[in-house]
């Protein structure tokens, strides 16, 4: 097996996030010589936290300029480490920070990149990656002749490496930055207030609201305020993450009644996200293919819909409740609230 470089960035507190430890575990599963490269403001604590991982060497690019997730500096750092390590295979977590730069880095190195990889394995003694095509509609296992091969592993696909902390010796790699590297400045992060944050990647349950919540109900009226309360109450009671169909988030652009807390960031499916949660509950959504491709990594699926022949009924959900979601979710919230207070 070829030498593998695990390339990770530190978090703002200097630690390594779970996706980095997952990439490390994936690399170790292939065998071969392991080296680690770290990028961040300070990398020593991160290196120490994985000192026992069996890496033959630790490389680091650090300094204030590498604290922020900026293409120019991150790509320069990753390129410098890759050249110092000389590893033919590079495995990195597909975080938003690395996802922005890894393919560009592969281009600089004269190599190739595969992103959104969900598994690495050995096929005939050579590394192979598994990834999805056409938005999770078909799965491929592939190998490459080109090196270096940069592999970006999607978070949540591999159990993270666990081991004792220790003291790692980090070889500092110099990166010469010019003004051209600093034309962009990261000025901050824009996030909803904590109590308004509805996207929770670590939640055990995904709750999806479809456009039906904003349509006319049996009485001929729309009940957006009631829908808003039912959904937000459910999220508070369960800690679920909120997803949406495209049609619902598109309504805001069409000037129709909308759920104000719902944005395109909530969108699941073809042009949305493909989150990983153990369970998913869909409501007022037809379960059409462009939406349900985003459910590929939701293990247990239930749906509430008034349409008994909707997409969910055609083998896409484990259970379809043919019922009024307003009525069911009101009762669900009552039961959850009673359970919480008891």
């Amino acid at each position, binding site marked *: 097996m070829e030498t593998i470089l695990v390339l990770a960035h530190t978090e703002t507190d200097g630690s390594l996030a779970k996706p980095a430890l997952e990439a490390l575990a994936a690399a170790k599963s292939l065998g071969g010589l392991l080296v680690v490269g770290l990028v961040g403001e300070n990398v020593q604590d991160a290196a120490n936290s994985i000192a026992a991982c069996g890496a033959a060497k630790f490389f680091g690019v650090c300094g204030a300029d590498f604290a922020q997730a900026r*293409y120019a500096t991150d790509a320069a750092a990753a390129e410098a480490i890759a050249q110092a390590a000389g590893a033919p295979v590079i495995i990195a977590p597909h975080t938003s920070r690395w*996802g922005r730069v890894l*393919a560009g880095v592969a*281009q600089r190195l004269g190599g190739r990149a595969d992103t959104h990889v969900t598994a690495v394995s050995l096929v005939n003694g050579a590394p192979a990656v598994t990834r999805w095509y056409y938005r999770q509609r078909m799965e491929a296992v592939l190998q490459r002749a080109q090196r270096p091969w940069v592999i970006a592993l999607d978070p949540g696909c591999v159990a993270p490496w666990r081991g004792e902390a220790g003291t790692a010796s980090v070889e500092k790699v110099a990166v010469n930055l010019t003004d051209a590297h600093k034309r962009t400045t990261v*000025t901050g992060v824009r996030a909803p207030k904590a109590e308004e944050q509805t996207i929770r990647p670590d939640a055990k349950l995904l709750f999806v609201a479809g456009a039906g919540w904003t349509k006319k109900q049996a009485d001929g009226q729309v009940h957006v305020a009631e829908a808003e309360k039912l959904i937000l109450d459910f999220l508070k009671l369960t800690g679920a993450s909120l997803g949406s169909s495209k049609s619902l988030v598109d309504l805001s652009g069409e000037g129709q009644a909308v759920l104000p807390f719902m944005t395109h960031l909530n969108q699941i499916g073809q*042009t949305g996200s493909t989150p990983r949660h153990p369970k998913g509950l869909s409501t007022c959504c037809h379960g059409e293919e462009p939406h349900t491709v985003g459910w590929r990594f939701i293990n247990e699926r239930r749906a509430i819909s008034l349409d008994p022949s909707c997409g969910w009924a055609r083998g896409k959900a484990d259970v379809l409740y043919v019922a009024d979601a307003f009525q069911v979710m009101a*009762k669900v919230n009552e039961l959850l609230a009673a359970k919480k207070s008891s």
Partner: protein
Amino acid sequence: MSTAYQIVVCGSIVPDPLQTLEPVSTPMGPALKNEMMLPAVLDPWASHALFEAAHLANSAPGSKVWLISIAPKAKLQQVMMTIAQKVPFELVALDGPAGGFTEAAEVAAILADAIKAIPGLDMKRLLVFGGWESASRGAGATMQMVGELLGITDQFQGVDQITVNTDGSLEILERIEGGKHQVSKCAGPPAVLGWATGSLPEPPNNPQIGMANMRAIMPALQRAKPAKIAAEGVTFVRVTLPKQLRETKIVKDTPAYEIAKEIVAWIANE
């Protein structure tokens, strides 16, 4: 400070999302069954990039939008009949495969060459737009590679918003984990922006724009150069459809309270 931008949007066609897709083996590698027969659309994220480009160009007088697309010429022509009615742009067509199993690096090299060949290209005004991922390969790799080949190191992915500041700098919002946006300030062009959904609705069809666009689109299609793209060095061990069909239990004619009890028990069950 006002800048007249040169906005080049990279975007290709993908099968209509409502189509059922099935992989087949060909001598050239994996492909889609009946690929040439499938109705196609402009890649959804590339569409957003195009709409955002047009919006930005509209707000910066003197700006111009190009759409560079690699696709089988006949399919591209069909898609242009629709997309040309949305916003003004000049098409640069390249006749080649648009499937997901092609190699991003090969696509990027051809796109970069096509951008460099645009007459009067001015790097100080250049913004390269595209989707942050496609609905075919879905790798988010091509735009970064195009940027590298053009020497552009101000790159942004998962972009939902761009704002031009009074000093000509750009404020850009990129998607990051947990439903948040990273806010960056870029000094100005050149830059690469891989768009997510953006913040604009799809523009309505405008026949006048369509007619104006089509006058240049048809000649562009006629002179489309062949683009040789494959996936050199890649061996596909297998390509399979997921075992996606579940035995759906359909619960009907059951009181809401009973359903609620079942759902609450299911949620609680670890």
